[in-house]
């Protein structure tokens, strides 16, 4: 049985009708037309659907609407204000740090959350922050380089 839910997505208050057990991912993709969070496994084990939920990285495929209600969601589309790119997205482009790009929006979400709490992270900190994100094309090392670049003092200035 559907019911109304209110939440804040990328800074905008939205109201959607959904079954309470509907995963947040479906609402983002099908009701709010935000396709950046992607379906990969449905049980929170791959990171393709990662979003920030009240500032913490969460698997939107595994967050039911009853739990998302009233919270602030940031998707990959909302990492940077306006239509621009977040520094970590620009660094991913600069390093050509993707092949198929399916996993990359979830990785950008994880990396941006890391940079929020640790603006110049160590390589080990980057690796740990991304260890819940899978990449099958084998681009991990380029991605680590890109996140370090985004976190370097020159970019931060």
């Amino acid at each position, binding site marked *: 049985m559907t019911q109304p839910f209110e939440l804040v997505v990328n800074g905008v208050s939205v109201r959607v009708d959904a079954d309470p057990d509907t995963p947040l991912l*479906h609402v983002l993709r099908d009701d709010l037309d935000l396709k950046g969070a992607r379906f990969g496994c449905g049980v929170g084990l791959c990171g393709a659907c990662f979003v920030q939920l009240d500032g913490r990285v969460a698997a939107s495929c595994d967050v039911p609407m009853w739990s998302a209600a009233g919270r602030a969601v940031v*998707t990959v589309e909302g990492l940077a204000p306006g239509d621009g790119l977040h520094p970590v997205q620009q660094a991913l482009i600069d390093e050509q740090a993707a092949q198929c790009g399916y996993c990359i929006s979830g990785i950008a979400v994880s990396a941006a959350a890391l940079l929020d709490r640790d603006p110049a992270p160590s390589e080990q900190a980057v690796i740990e922050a991304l260890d819940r994100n899978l990449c099958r094309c084998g681009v991990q090392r380029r991605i680590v380089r890109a996140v370090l670049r985004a976190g370097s003092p020159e970019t931060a200035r």
Partner: protein
Amino acid sequence: MTAEREAVRVPRLPGDLEANPILARWVTVLPDGTIGVRAGKVELGQGILTALSQIAADELGARVDQVTMLPAHTSRGPDEGLTAGSMSVSQSGPAVRAACAQVRARFVAEAARRWEVGAGRIAVSEGRISCGDRVTSYGELAEAVDLEVPADPGGPLTHGGRPVHVGTSSPRLDLPDKIAGLPRFIHDLRLPGQLFGRVLRPPSPGATLRDVDATRLAGMKAELVRDGSFVGVVGPREADVARAVETLRAATTWEERDTLPDEDDLRGFLRSAPAETIETETIGQETIGQEPPPGRTLRATYSRPFLAHASMAPSCGVARWNDDGTLSVWSHSQGVHRLRDAIALALRLDADRVEVEHAQGAGCYGHNAADDAAFDAVLLARATPGRPVHVQWSRADELAWSPFGSAMSADVGAVVDESGAVRSWRYDVWSQGHTSRPGYLGVPGLLAAAHLERPLRYPAPADPALHAGAGTLRNAVPIYDFPHRRVTGHRLLETPIRSSAIRSLGAFMNVFAIESFMDELALAAGADPVEYRLAHLRDTRARAVLEAAAAAAGWGAPADEGTGRGAGLARYKERGAYCAVVADVEAEREIRVRRLTVAVDVGMVVNPDGVRNQIEGGATQAASWTLKERVRFDRRRITSVDWESYPILRFSEAPEISVEIVEAPGLPSAGAGEAAQGPTAAAIANAVAAAVGARVRDLPITPDAVVAAIESADL
């Protein structure tokens, strides 16, 4: 003399252009100046459309951003077969080059006609067509230049100018949008009136559907579709449909049978089933087992398990039955024309009534479930004429029902002389076939077709012919100069597990086995493994990559306690890219690949960073296969159905990689996507053996396997 002059005067068109000669299939120019280039090869995450856009831009005299790469399409674009086998740059590159060169010539001719000047006086740069101060453009001339004409076999194959874009690391065209999170995947496709579908796959390969309690779906906003053992749901909302298919799972009764082999005895399974024998060219008189033995004989057996594609996105397909009786399909297939023909064959339609357009999916590493998902959409959409149905597979189905790369096992033997040099080589490899792609052996080869009321079963997978690169025997012939050798493949004729092409086919296993055994022979000879290889190797390009990788890795320096270093080498398909890998591993409590040092020769390089990215990715994925991956099953069901039961390499496990491109600018381009897999597996295996003093011959090289190897070496 005459015949020679004739041969010079009539250059042959590149094969793919000769087969698809109409220029408009390749290039369309609109009055607004848009230059669309549509190849038959598809973007799989490997960057092929970027590489082809560089070639097209150079030939057209345009910037890369003035060229729009369009998706492969069965009616609008050329048929270039499959995007597979690292052949796209070598097949599509020359065709795109020649088509664009001829299009440019036609536009230049039109400008020359208008300006009444010789074509030779006209320059084309950044899309501007000019002669002195007179300037026009592709867009302005578009309506006057007819491209619905065949390519001229006597026309140019290239403009011949100095390349501006080819040879540079042109950034990937598609990455900014994907990194921004924009809808660029088939999963994101939303067509007017679109419905969502889900298929309930059988619980096991041998299962048949006995009963469905359709009443359980009452009130669920999803319609049931059933044909034999094929069953699914269609509805307007994805969340409802996802819920309905889980309800359906509990509402079905299946009859199951044990059909699978013993996962702990794949070696026995592969050797006991009926098989076709495939021989390669035998050199000299292979003497192993002959009396009297002419030297010392060494033998070893290697194996790999079944491997899953494990792409980040479960497969997806979209289909719509149109009111005029035609069928439109969107798929991330590797071959839209093959898929069209297979759908037509399965449903007894005229292929002209079916059109398939490529839509991008996640990374594709071979024949995955893309075609199967498209056919699922076709079957579900039959219930909703005029409305497109979008079918999304689950992770569990992706891991259990995509075709696997076959398990393989190989026996290697060598007779060595007093110095330890190889005098005779014998290699036997057992495997299921490596292709069951749509249309193979004259059957549709689509998963759901085998589950219908009137099933279209799939026979045992085949192998590409030896001259087409082989499957079981891909890279089974060693690169070394042995005086005598015999190489034999044994392809199973009964296959309880569906297998097909996964990146590099048999080459991953064969190079792992050959290159592991070369290290065993070097050890027995008391020789350095790199020196031992070089002593058997005349091919200068192979020597160059091996020496380059060894030098870059600091080969010869003493290894730290608990670490090891190993090398691997191959030329992909025996005629593609050369690749050598040196692995540095730590083997203490766990097996950790610290660094892979790669040297590669791909002939002429179209995009250096693209080559590096493909080599890095191929090597990293191969490290994952080598260390972690194994499809699991019991006698009835596939049991590796999520990322916990089928783990792949994580960020914390990914090795550092350096790639050196050994330049060979005058030589034809070879693909880079499959060059590194076999050498990487061998380098890691050899490094682990060097670190612990015992060898794992059965992949994956897990900590448990290393402990078992050490224990058996101590006996």
